[in-house]
């Protein structure tokens, strides 16, 4: 490593801040929920939600670092264009430590997930999805650094932290795709991060970071590299503006067994099969007694849905809410894709009629007072044929 780089890394504020960054990232994961731990993609994607809290922390650190360095710069007597190299090196050193700490936290979370028993290892797409959050952290570090460099006052540090938090939160609330680099409140089984969105986010963050650091130059707007970066940012931004989901259905490593219904679970959920099948079988037996035929298949694969096939939602909640999971899967088999694809108010009404009856039937089957479906339910199921 070249001596200036090594020196910059050694004296960077990022180095003593490594434990803080790791602690914030891990606290953000473990204090919110440990639900994802059995599902590797969910675990890794949810870990990236740490950027919401780490963003302000990193921006504040970078601002602090700039304020620390700003008084020393005039004494270095570097040429005018040396300011860019000085700032770039200091920013890069801080960002390198932050990224290293972030990745250490991720390794810890993945290790805990493995101890928890998840059978998978990270796939290529899981690794690709790491790039956008790192890009976001690099960008907020650049913003904090430039703010502190331009205005070396301690007051700027908390304000840049608060401002970063407000912007990130605001962007999340209006569902802007550029900020959605992670975080999921429900299982991602059968889903994977979209590589094209991840690439666009990475390009947007890289271009924006470059532009922010360029702001230090008086002639930033006239340099070809700045113009190219601005074009890249605009193109990536326009692409991201049209993105409604950062995730897409993905092939699953399924294990299927049984008949009527055949139950297909991801290998990650295989240990929970018996917990799911026990209440399911009891419920389906009850339904058969009152003349309702069981679904052909219940599955966690999102790309294998059709007539008689039900998607099993939120299997991770089977211990807390077996009724909710079982009725969700059976309802989905009756309404098919209409559960998520219903477009008209009439279709939605029919979906609710079916779902309400299945939930009522489950509770009655537990009490032994299950009766056959009323005509309205039979008719609703028949009418939903169009979107099944």
């Amino acid at each position, binding site marked *: 490593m070249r001596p200036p780089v090594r020196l910059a890394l050694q004296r960077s504020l990022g180095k003593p801040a490594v434990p803080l960054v790791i602690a*914030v990232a891990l*606290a*953000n994961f473990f*204090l*919110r929920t440990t639900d994802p731990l059995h599902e590797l993609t969910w675990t890794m994607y949810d870990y990236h*939600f740490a950027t*919401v*809290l780490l963003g*302000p*922390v990193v921006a*504040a650190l970078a601002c*602090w670092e700039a*304020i620390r360095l700003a008084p020393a710069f005039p004494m270095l007597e570097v040429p005018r264009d040396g300011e860019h190299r000085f700032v770039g090196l200091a920013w890069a050193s801080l960002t390198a430590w932050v990224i290293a700490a972030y990745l250490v936290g991720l390794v810890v979370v993945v290790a805990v997930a493995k101890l928890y028993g998840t059978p998978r290892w990270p796939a290529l797409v899981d690794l690709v999805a790491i790039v956008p959050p790192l890009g976001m952290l690099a960008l907020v570090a650049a913003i904090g650094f430039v703010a502190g460099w331009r205005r070396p006052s*301690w*007051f700027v*540090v*908390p*304000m840049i*932290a*608060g401002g970063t*938090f407000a912007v990130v*939160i605001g962007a*999340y*609330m209006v569902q802007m795709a550029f900020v959605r680099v992670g*975080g999921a*409140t*429900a299982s991602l089984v059968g889903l994977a991060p979209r590589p094209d969105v991840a690439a666009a986010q990475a390009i947007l963050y890289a271009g924006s970071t470059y532009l922010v650091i360029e702001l230090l130059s008086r002639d930033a707007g006239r340099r070809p590299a700045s113009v190219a970066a601005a074009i890249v940012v605009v193109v990536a931004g326009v692409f991201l503006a049209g993105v409604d989901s950062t995730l897409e259905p993905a092939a699953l490593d399924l294990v299927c067994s049984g008949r009527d219904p055949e139950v297909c679970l991801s290998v990650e959920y295989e240990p929970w099969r018996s917990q799911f099948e026990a209440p399911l079988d009891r419920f389906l037996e009850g339904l058969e007694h009152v003349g309702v035929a069981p679904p052909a298949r219940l599955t966690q694969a999102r790309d294998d849905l059709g007539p008689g096939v039900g998607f099993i939602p939120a299997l991770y909640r089977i211990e807390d809410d077996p009724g909710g999971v079982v009725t969700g899967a059976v309802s989905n088999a009756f309404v098919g894709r209409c559960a998520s694809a219903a477009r008209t108010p009439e279709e939605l009404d029919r979906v609710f009629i079916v779902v309400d009856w299945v939930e009522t039937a489950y509770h009655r089957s537990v009490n032994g007072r299950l009766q056959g479906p009323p005509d309205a339910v039979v008719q609703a199921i028949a009418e939903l044929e169009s979107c099944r």
Partner: protein
Amino acid sequence: MIRDLVLLARRWRVGRTLAVLALAWTALWFLEPPLRVPGREHVVAVVWPLVVALPVAASLDSASLFAEPIEILARRSLLLRKVAHVLLTALVVGLLAVTAPGATDGGILARNGAFLAGLGYLLAVVAPRPVGAIAVILLPAAMWILGSRGPGLPPAWWAVLLQGTGSRSASVAAVVVAGLGAATFVGTAERP
């Protein structure tokens, strides 16, 4: 006398603190509760009790000045100036709590302001300069993101700033932290 007050106000950047107070006050009018917490589907939680962090952080920025030699070596009482600074922060919090729009609870604003100010004063004594003000901003953010729970559930016990009006433990925590912070800040005035 007026010139003395002007000098103090300039030294403590009172004008800037009032500007941030106005910003927070404006935010309260636009941030209609409840506000969704990102990353928590179907959960609504309030953000407005946390807005008070902004003027508190602005006021606390000048709390660290009292560690400078020029302040310590002054013939005028450092203790009195520190007490005046604490009163100024209390006034800022009080102003926000009293003039907040009807939809917000002034009591919670005052409680959270007291908690954050106490924490900030404590850190102004024991930590490097920006740490107190950063903590005052980031702690509410962390409590909001990490301390809120599922639909209809109360916030985590440690998320003091998110507790409702009737929370005795949150009020006690605010009084204790505010008292401890102010006492530590003022009590270290004549320390060698």
